[in-house]
C-alpha cells in the first residue's frame, strides 16, 4: 500500500548488483513492489504489503532481492553492542503516552540517499504502520548534542519552551500545537491531556514533544551527523518493537553499529532494541499441501534461505529463524508464501481444479434482466445511475418530505453523501443532463435503493426497483400508463390503480399501483415545481414500482 521513492543507483548498490530498470521491475516483485513510475534515477515504488514495514525503504527491498538473486542468502545478522545511554520513564507518562523503546546507531556515513531513506522510512512507519503517529511516533537525534540520561516525562502545556524543528523562536508545547504545522496536523493526538509527553536530557535540553515534533537543537539530523539516538513512543510494545527494529535494521544495513539503550520504567527495565532472530516451525508436508508443488524438504529450506530465513531440517519439520524486523509471521502459511515467492510464481504450472459444480444466476438478477428486456422492447432506453446521491436530489428537488435514509459519515463530496431511497430522482437528473438531445426521451432504470429497516441485521434493506419516465413536448399520464399496462401484461400480472397523492406529482394525475391489493408503486405526471427544480422545460410522466412485490 505505501508508495515510496528510491534511488535506482542506491538500490543497486545495496543489492550489490547492477540492474537495468527493466530488470528491476521484475525483481522488485520479490519485495511485493511494483514500479509505478521512473524519473531519471528516481523510482516510485508501490509496496503492496501493508503489514511489512520492513519493506518500505531501499534497505528492506534490497534485502529481499539480495536473497533471491545474489549469494547473500540466509538470515541477515545484526550485531548489537551496549551503549551507556539510559532513558528514565517517569510514571506521569502512563496517562498520556506510556511506552517508549530506544536505540543508538553509531558511525553512520550519512549521505543524501541515507538521509532521504531514513526520513521516508520513519514517515511511512509512523503514518501507515503507526496509524498516523497514534500507535508509533519515531524520533531520531544527534547523539552528541544530548547529555544522558534522558527522561521521558510530561510537562504542563505552557511548562517549558524550546525551538521546534523548522522554527527559530522558542515556543511552549501549547504554542506548538497552535502554530506549528505538525502541531496542527497531529495535535488532536494530545487532545484532552492535562500534561504533554516530553523527552528531555540531563542538561535540560528538550529532545522532542512526541508525537508532534523534535527540537531544532537535538532533533535535526544532517549529513554531518555521525551517531544517532532513536526513540519510538506509543502505547503497545507489539507496535513499538517492530517499528524500532525496522528503523535500526535499515541503519545497520548502511553500516551503522547498533547499540542498546536501557529504558528504565518505574517497575521494570527494558533493554532495546532486541535484534535476536525469531523462531518458527514449518511442516514440510503442509507446505506441499498448500503449494501443490511436491517439493522436497531440502528444496524448501533452500527457498527459505533465499527469503532470508535460517533453516534447520529436523525430520519432516523445518525449524526456521527469521529476521527481527518482521512481525507478520503468524502461521506457517506465512512462511510458505515466502518460499513460493523464492520459487517464482511464474514457474508454477497453473492447474484448473476438476470440480463438478453447477453455476447459476441469482433469481433477483434473472428477474431484473427479464424486466429490463421488456422495457427495452417497449422502446425505452436503459440507464444506470449511482446509488450514492444527496438529499437535495432526493427530497428538495422532488418537492417531497425528507425521510430517514442511510447517510455516509465521511463523504468525499457533498454530491455523494447518502444512499437513494427511490429511483425517480436519478431519472430526473438524467433528463436534466440531456435537454439538448432529441425528444421524445423514454428511459428506465432497474436498480437497488436502500431503505432503513430496524429489523434487519444491517438496519437497512436493499430493494430492487424499476422506474420509467417519458419526456416530450406533450406527454401525459396515459402515455406512461400505456407503458405500465404493457409491462404488467408482459409480466402476466393483474394490477389496479387507485387515486393517490404525492408531492412530486400533479394532484389528480397521480395514482397508486396495486398488485393483489398491495401498493407496489406510483404513477403520475411530474409536478411542474419539480420540473422547474431540475430546470426541465418538457413535461415528464413516470412510474416507479417495487420489483420484489410484483
Amino acid at each position, binding site marked *: *500500500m505505501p508508495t515510496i521513492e528510491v534511488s535506482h543507483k542506491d538500490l543497486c548498490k545495496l543489492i550489490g548488483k547492477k540492474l537495468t530498470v527493466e530488470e528491476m521491475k521484475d525483481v522488485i*516483485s520479490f519485495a*511485493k513492489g511494483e514500479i509505478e513510475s521512473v524519473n531519471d534515477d528516481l523510482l516510485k515504488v508501490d509496496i*503492496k504489503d*501493508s*503489514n*511489512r514495514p520492513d519493506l518500505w525503504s531501499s534497505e528492506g527491498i534490497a534485502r529481499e532481492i539480495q536473497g533471491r538473486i545474489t549469494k547473500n542468502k540466509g538470515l541477515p545478522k545484526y550485531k548489537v553492542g551496549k551503549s551507556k545511554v539510559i532513558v528514565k520513564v517517569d510514571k506521569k507518562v502512563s496517562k498520556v503516552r506510556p511506552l517508549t523503546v530506544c536505540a543508538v546507531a553509531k558511525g553512520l556515513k550519512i549521505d543524501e540517499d541515507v538521509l532521504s531513506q531514513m526520513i521516508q522510512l520513519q514517515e511511512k512507519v509512523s503514518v501507515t*504502520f503507526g496509524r498516523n503517529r497514534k500507535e508509533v511516533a519515531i524520533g531520531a537525534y544527534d547523539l552528541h548534542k544530548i547529555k544522558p540520561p534522558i527522561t521521558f516525562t510530561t510537562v504542563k502545556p505552557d511548562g517549558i519552551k524550546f525551538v521546534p524543528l523548522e522554527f527559530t523562536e522558542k515556543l511552549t508545547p501549547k504554542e506548538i500545537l497552535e502554530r506549528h504545522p505538525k502541531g496542527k496536523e497531529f495535535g488532536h493526538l494530545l487532545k484532552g491531556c492535562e500534561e504533554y509527553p516530553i523527552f528531555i536530557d540531563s542538561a535540560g535540553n528538550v529532545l522532542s514533544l512526541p508525537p508532534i515534533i523534535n527540537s531544532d537543537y537535538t532533533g535535526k539530523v544532517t549529513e554531518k551527523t555521525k551517531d544517532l539516538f532513536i526513540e519510538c513512543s506509543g502505547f503497545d510494545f*507489539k507496535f513499538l518493537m517492530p517499528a524500532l527494529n525496522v528503523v535500526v535494521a535499515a541503519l545497520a544495513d548502511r553500516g551503522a553499529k547498533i547499540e542498546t539503550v536501557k529504558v528504565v520504567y518505574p517497575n521494570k527495565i527494558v533493554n532495546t532494541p532486541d535484534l535476536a532472530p525469531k523462531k518458527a516451525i514449518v511442516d514440510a508436508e503442509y507446505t506441499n*499441501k*498448500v*503449494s*501443490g*508443488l511436491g517439493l522436497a524438504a531440502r528444496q524448501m529450506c533452500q527457498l527459505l534461505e533465499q527469503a532470508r530465513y535460517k533453516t534447520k531440517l529436523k525430520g519432516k519439520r523445518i525449524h526456521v529463524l527469521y529476521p527481527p524486523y518482521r512481525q507478520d509471521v*503468524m*502461521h506457517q*502459511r506465512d512462511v510458505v*508464501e515466502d518460499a*513460493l*515467492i523464492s520459487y517464482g*510464481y511464474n514457474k508454477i504450472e*497453473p*492447474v*484448473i*481444479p476438476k470440480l*463438478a*459444480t*453447477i*453455476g*447459476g444466476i*441469482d433469481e433477483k*438478477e434473472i428477474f431484473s*434482466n427479464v424486466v*429490463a*428486456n421488456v*422495457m*427495452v422492447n417497449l422502446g425505452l*432506453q*436503459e440507464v*444506470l*445511475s449511482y446509488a*450514492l446521491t444527496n438529499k437535495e436530489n432526493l427530497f428538495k428537488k422532488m418537492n417531497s418530505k425528507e425521510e430517514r*435514509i*442511510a447517510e*455516509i*459519515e*465521511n463523504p*468525499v*463530496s457533498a454530491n455523494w453523501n447518502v*444512499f437513494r431511497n427511490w429511483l425517480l430522482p436519478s431519472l430526473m437528473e438524467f433528463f436534466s*443532463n440531456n435537454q439538448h438531445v*432529441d425528444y421524445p*426521451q*423514454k428511459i428506465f432504470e432497474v436498480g*437497488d435503493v436502500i431503505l432503513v429497516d*430496524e429489523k434487519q*441485521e*444491517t*438496519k*437497512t434493506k436493499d430493494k430492487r426497483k424499476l422506474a420509467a419516465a417519458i419526456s416530450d413536448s406533450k406527454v401525459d399520464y396515459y402515455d406512461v400508463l400505456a407503458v405500465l399496462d404493457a409491462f404488467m401484461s408482459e409480466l402476466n400480472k393483474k394490477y389496479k390503480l387507485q387515486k393517490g397523492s404525492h408531492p412530486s406529482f400533479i394532484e389528480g394525475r397521480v395514482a397508486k399501483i396495486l398488485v393483489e391489493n398491495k401498493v407496489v408503486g406510483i404513477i403520475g405526471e411530474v409536478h411542474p415545481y419539480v420540473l422547474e427544480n431540475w430546470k426541465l422545460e418538457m413535461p415528464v410522466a413516470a412510474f416507479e414500482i417495487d420489483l420484489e412485490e410484483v
Partner: protein
Amino acid sequence: MAYKLTDEGKEYLEMGLPERNLVKLLESYPKKSVSIEEASKKVKNFHIALKWAFEEGWISKKENQLTLVKIPDKTEEEMALEKINEGKEVKEEILKILISRNLVIKVTETYKRTEEEIKRYGNIIGELTHDIIITGLWKDRKFKAREVEVVRKKLDRKKIILGKRQPYNHFLLQVRGKLVELGFKEMRGPTIETEFWNFDALFQPQNHPARDWAMTFSLSYPKYGKLPSVSNKVKESHEKNWKYKWDPKIAMQLMPRAHGTALSARTLDSSPEIPGKYFAISRCYRPDIIDVKHMIEFNQVEGIVVGESLTFKNLLGILKMFAIEIAGARKVKFVPDYYPFTEPSAQLSAKHPQLGWIEFGGSGIFREEVTKPLGIDVPVLAWGLGIDRLAMFKLGINDIRNLFSRDLSWLRNQKAVR
C-alpha cells in the same frame, strides 16, 4: 359529407344485391323452391344473400329446401346505392348499414385529394391509403416514384429511436453469463454491511494497519447493526492470533460494502456447497479522489472456490482460466500480492490482444484464521477481477465515470454489433 360506392358496392349496383338475386332465382322455379346446394351454385355471394333474404323474411328454409315467401319491392338499400352513385344524399341509418356491409365508404380528405391529383396529373397516385385500396381507385393507375435512394435529410424526420440496454450493464451481464458457464453460482448480500463482515470476519484486526489496506466509508445513520452468532468464534481467533481485546462495538459499525469479499465471508458462514464455486458482481464503495480512473462507487467481480485439497497451483489455474475466458488473453503473468485475509496471495496480469499487459485480478488462498471460525475446514481460493478497464476498452470509454453514462446521445448511439 360525401360518400362513394366501394368496388363491391358498384358490382351490386350493376348486378343486383345477392339477396335480390336469390329471390330472382327462386322465382324462376315452378314451385318457387330450390335446394341450398343448387342455389349456392347459382347465386354469387350466396351466404350473404341467404343471411339478408332470411332476415328480411323473403324466404323460408325447411331442411335443405329454400322457398320464396314474398317478392319484395325495390328496397331502401337498392335505392340508396343508386342515389349514392349519382352523388345524392341518403338517410343516415341506411348509410350505416351500407358502410357496415362495406358497400359504401366515407370519402376522406386524402381520397378527395388523390382523386383531384389523378385528374390533374393523369393516372398517377401519390399516397396509397386505405380508401384508395378499398375503392379500387388504384386499379389501372400508376404510382408516383419515390426517391428510393434516400437522402439523409428525408429520413431524419422518420428516424426510429430504439430502446437499448445500458452498455456497461450489458457487459456485466456477459461476464455474469461467462462465470455461470464456468460453473460459478451467484452470491447475494446487502449493500450496507457491518464492519464485522467487511473486516472482522476476514481476520482484519481492529485498530491495526492491516485493517487500513483499503480506505472505507462508514455510516452516520444508521450507525450500528447486529452481530451474527459466528462473531464469538471470530473474536476468539482475533484475540488469540492478534493479541488484543476485540471490541464488538467496532464490529457493529455500519458501512457501505468496500469489497465483494464481504459476500464471500457471508457465503462461507452459510454452509456453502463443498465442492463449490461462487461469484458476485457487487457495487462497492471506497473514499477516493474522484477522477478519470477512480470513482467512489464501482463494481467488483469476486468469488471463491471451496474444495478438498485445493492448492496454490489451482489458484493460478483458476486465474488463468479467467484471463483466457473473460479478458480474451493468450498469456498470463503472476506476481506476489498482499491481502490481510489471504496467504499466499497473487496478482494476475493478462496480455490483452489490444491493451497489452493489464492487471486483471487479485487473489489468494484464504487464511485458516479466516475460514476456521466460519466453520470451513477445506481450502478456499479467493479471487477478484478488475473488469472495469476491460469494460472501458470494449465500450471505448476513457473516463471511468462514463460507465454509468449520463449522456443519452451516447447511449442511443451504441451499436448491437461492434
